[in-house]
């Protein structure tokens, strides 16, 4: 792993080599050991290791960027030169704001676990055997990915800013299939392998797969649904991607544009972005080194805020919340550590309150149909069940839904007291299970 000392050395060399008015250096990467298994055997087992250093040079407001995955002096000088040449040959960026000076950061603790990095391939293989064996014994097949790794992010600039954070992570995603073709899913994440309870996750996926046998077809219509945390997290993630970022807000593309202060969702819905929450802690600063603030996005249904970066906050004349992605980030700032506040009843209690409806394990292959509404389509997957009179009575074939996400969060009947953290595409999402009324099912698979 690149140590803080080495990161500082690399950044200092790059800044020294630059003749720009301002220079920003981002160093990121890590190691990831992914043991992939399917049909009850390990079929792909990889160790990836890569880092990149990105240099941003600003001559006034003329900005250029270059990056490389090599860090020797010659390469650093080369990419500084490339970035500088680009900066000096192109037009001004009117949204460029001066870089910040040094900050103090509130670093999450206990996020680097040496045992997680030291786990040998043989030990991981044996752990995977422990996942496969009960599935085999039940006549089922297991497929999954068991991953451990570390990451480092370091940011420095020519105003003396330096930020460094390293962490380990572990995850298991697991799909169990019965001979009849039904499937069940489980996933677990943490900063250490110890936090990922492979036994419990295996039991969960196996139970779901067996319960998913003999699925029946269901007609399109509106149903009460219990969205388990995996499914709820996906819907929240898409709401966030199109709605909670400062760039979409400033450009009028977000459902929150011009609506801060209005009630847009149910009173029982509070959504925050907080890097200190959940079973995997996030990055305490953004990719320009600004401290990452905890931001309340929706409070008891009322739209409160979006997240901003240096560039979008300047345009919006508001505070930078420290959510910049790596420059130039044409996508804009987005929340990376979402939290949906839990409720007070258990998931089992939620199920018991459904007269006729569905229990949905996860959502799959979602796509934004209309970004301003925002509306989303997707399919259920790996465990979709029918609830009648408060009990799960059987399985249904996977269903297609089309939902207005903002309106969905107005139809939340209850949120469970238990929460789970999922991790997807660099973001963590901590959610309870949701009981949603009138979930719009528009089709199904055969």
């Amino acid at each position, binding site marked *: 792993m690149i140590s803080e000392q080495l990161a500082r050395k690399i950044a200092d060399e790059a800044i020294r080599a630059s003749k720009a008015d301002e220079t920003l250096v981002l160093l990121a990467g890590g190691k990831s050991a992914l043991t992939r298994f399917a049909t009850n055997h390990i079929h792909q087992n990889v160790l990836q290791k890569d880092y990149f250093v990105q240099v941003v040079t600003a001559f006034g407001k003329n900005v250029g960027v270059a990056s490389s995955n*090599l860090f020797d002096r010659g390469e650093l000088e080369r990419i500084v030169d490339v970035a500088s040449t680009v900066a000096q040959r192109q037009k001004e960026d009117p949204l460029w704001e001066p870089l910040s000076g040094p900050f103090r950061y509130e670093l999450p603790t206990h996020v680097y676990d040496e045992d997680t990095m030291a786990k040998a391939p043989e030990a991981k293989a044996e752990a*995977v055997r422990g996942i496969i064996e009960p599935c085999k014994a039940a006549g089922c097949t297991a497929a999954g990915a068991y991953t451990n790794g570390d990451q480092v992010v370091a940011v420095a600039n020519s105003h003396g800013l330096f930020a460094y954070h390293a962490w380990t992570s572990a995850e298991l995603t697991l799909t169990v299939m019965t001979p009849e073709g039904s499937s069940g899913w489980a996933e677990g994440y943490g900063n250490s392998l110890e936090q990922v309870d492979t036994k419990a996750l295996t039991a969960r996926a196996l139970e779901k797969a067996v319960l998913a046998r003999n699925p029946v077809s269901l007609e399109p219509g509106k149903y009460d649904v219990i969205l388990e945390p995996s499914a709820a997290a996906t819907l929240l993630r898409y709401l966030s991607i199109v709605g909670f970022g400062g760039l979409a807000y400033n450009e009028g593309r977000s459902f929150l544009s011009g609506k801060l202060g209005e009630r847009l969702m149910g009173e029982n819905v509070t959504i925050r972005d907080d890097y200190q929450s959940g079973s995997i802690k996030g990055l305490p600063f953004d990719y320009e080194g600004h401290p990452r603030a905890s931001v309340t996005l929706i409070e008891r249904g009322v739209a409160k805020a979006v997240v901003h970066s240096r560039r979008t906050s300047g345009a919006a004349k508001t505070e930078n919340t420290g959510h910049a992605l790596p420059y130039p980030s044409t996508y804009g700032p987005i929340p990376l550590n979402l939290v949906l506040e839990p409720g007070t009843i258990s998931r089992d209690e939620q199920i018991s309150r459904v007269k006729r409806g569905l229990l949905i394990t996860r959502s799959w292959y979602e796509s934004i149909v209309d970004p301003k509404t925002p509306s989303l389509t997707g399919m259920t997957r790996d465990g979709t069940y029918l609830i009648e009179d408060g009990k799960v009575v059987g399985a249904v074939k996977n269903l297609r839904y089309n939902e207005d996400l903002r309106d969905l969060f107005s139809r939340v009947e209850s949120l469970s007291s238990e929460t789970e953290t999922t991790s997807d595409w660099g973001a963590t999402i901590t959610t309870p299970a949701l009981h949603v009324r009138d979930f719009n099912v528009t089709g199904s698979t055969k």
Partner: protein
Amino acid sequence: MAQYAIDMAKDLGATYVDVRLIRSRQQSIDVKNGRLEGVTNRYGNGIGIRAYIDGAWGFAGNPDLKLKKVEVAVRRAVLIAKASARVKGEGVRLAPVEPAKGSWASPCAESPFDVPLEEKLDILFRCNELMMGVEGVAIAKATMDFREENKLFVSSEGSVIRQRTVQSGAGTSATTVGASGVQTRSFPYSFRGQFENRGFEHVRRLGLVENAERVAREAVELQTAPQCESGITTVILGGNQLALQIHESCGHPTELDRALGTEINFAGGTFMQPELLGNLKYGSEKVTITYDATIEGALGSYGWDDEGVAGQRFTIIDRGRFVEYQTSRETAPILGVRANGTMRADGWNNLPLIRMATVSLEPGDVSYEDLIAGTDDGLLLMDNRSWSIDDMRVNFQFGTELGWRIKKGKLAGMVKNPTYTGTTTEFWNSCDAVADRASWKVIGIPNCGKGQPSQTARVSHGASFARFRNVKVGVGYDK
């Protein structure tokens, strides 16, 4: 270096080893609303080592090519393979292949990396200026993306293959925000434009500036266009919408690794199971779908795959019947079929997976004009906006940027927010006409995701226009 790594791995017990050494560079340029959002240049180097021991694979990569670091990567790959062998199932058997020695390069008349930045920016800013000049446009974007990869593949069987690929892509889009929400029009296609395995000559031919105003006017017109009605109708697909339909409902489901269950945990499986090979009536007789890695300039083309098997052409769907999978040296022997050279990895730091090259709906026998003229009532849909399909590749739903009504054989006005849904075999069996070669194009898709860890492949699809009957449209807007 590669041979050193192979010899070392063999000394440590590997019975097969392959090594990829890759050097790459990329440039992305984004211009938006008259501002340069960013010019990013990325450089990458590394070595990826795949080792096969006792019926199992191990893989390790390293960006540092110093000897000691390569040795570390070799030891890791071997260690991982030996660990995998503890839980190996029936073990891997590789289909035999003749070692290959040779080189291949994509056509490149003008390296995009030699074109001055100012020249690229002039084109992009001109497009922006023309688009912003159309009243009602809120966001105008123009982008260029370039990539060059130099790859050396060496295997313990004696293959030594050098390949150089230069890729260029460019596109524009105009977005309006109003009473009809967010409406976007793209050119030549959505997903940052059209991509090919060619140099800058490709960008010069695209007509970005010439089409900028039209694209912007369509984005404005969409704000007041009527909503696409919901119901059952005839649909003609073209452009990158037809490309994406092929991609999702034929390309992916015919990857043999999916059929054998090794992608279940991420992208899923496929309804096109081995017992259906040769028996499934996938589509109508008008539907012939091919795989081709040899089309000059196509984004998905290559000389040899990342197992040293020559890139080739074969038929997947023959006049509606499912006849061949995309296979690899590992999956082919399981079904007793041939390895047809489809394995590709994203860079040096990933191991290869079965990937599409150019998967095409072969042209038919009717002109585009006659296709439209022969449609009494329906919709023409082009340029994808949303896409979704289930984990077995059956139920799908797509949306496009706009649609054109067809009434009595003529285009009769624009509609906004068109969507359509269906199930794969029902849909393709409803295909009753495919336009001819005059309107057939190869469309690049630069962002196909697969695998764990996730990889991106650059693929392409040949498509003209195709007509489908009794399709459900207006999904998601039929409240």
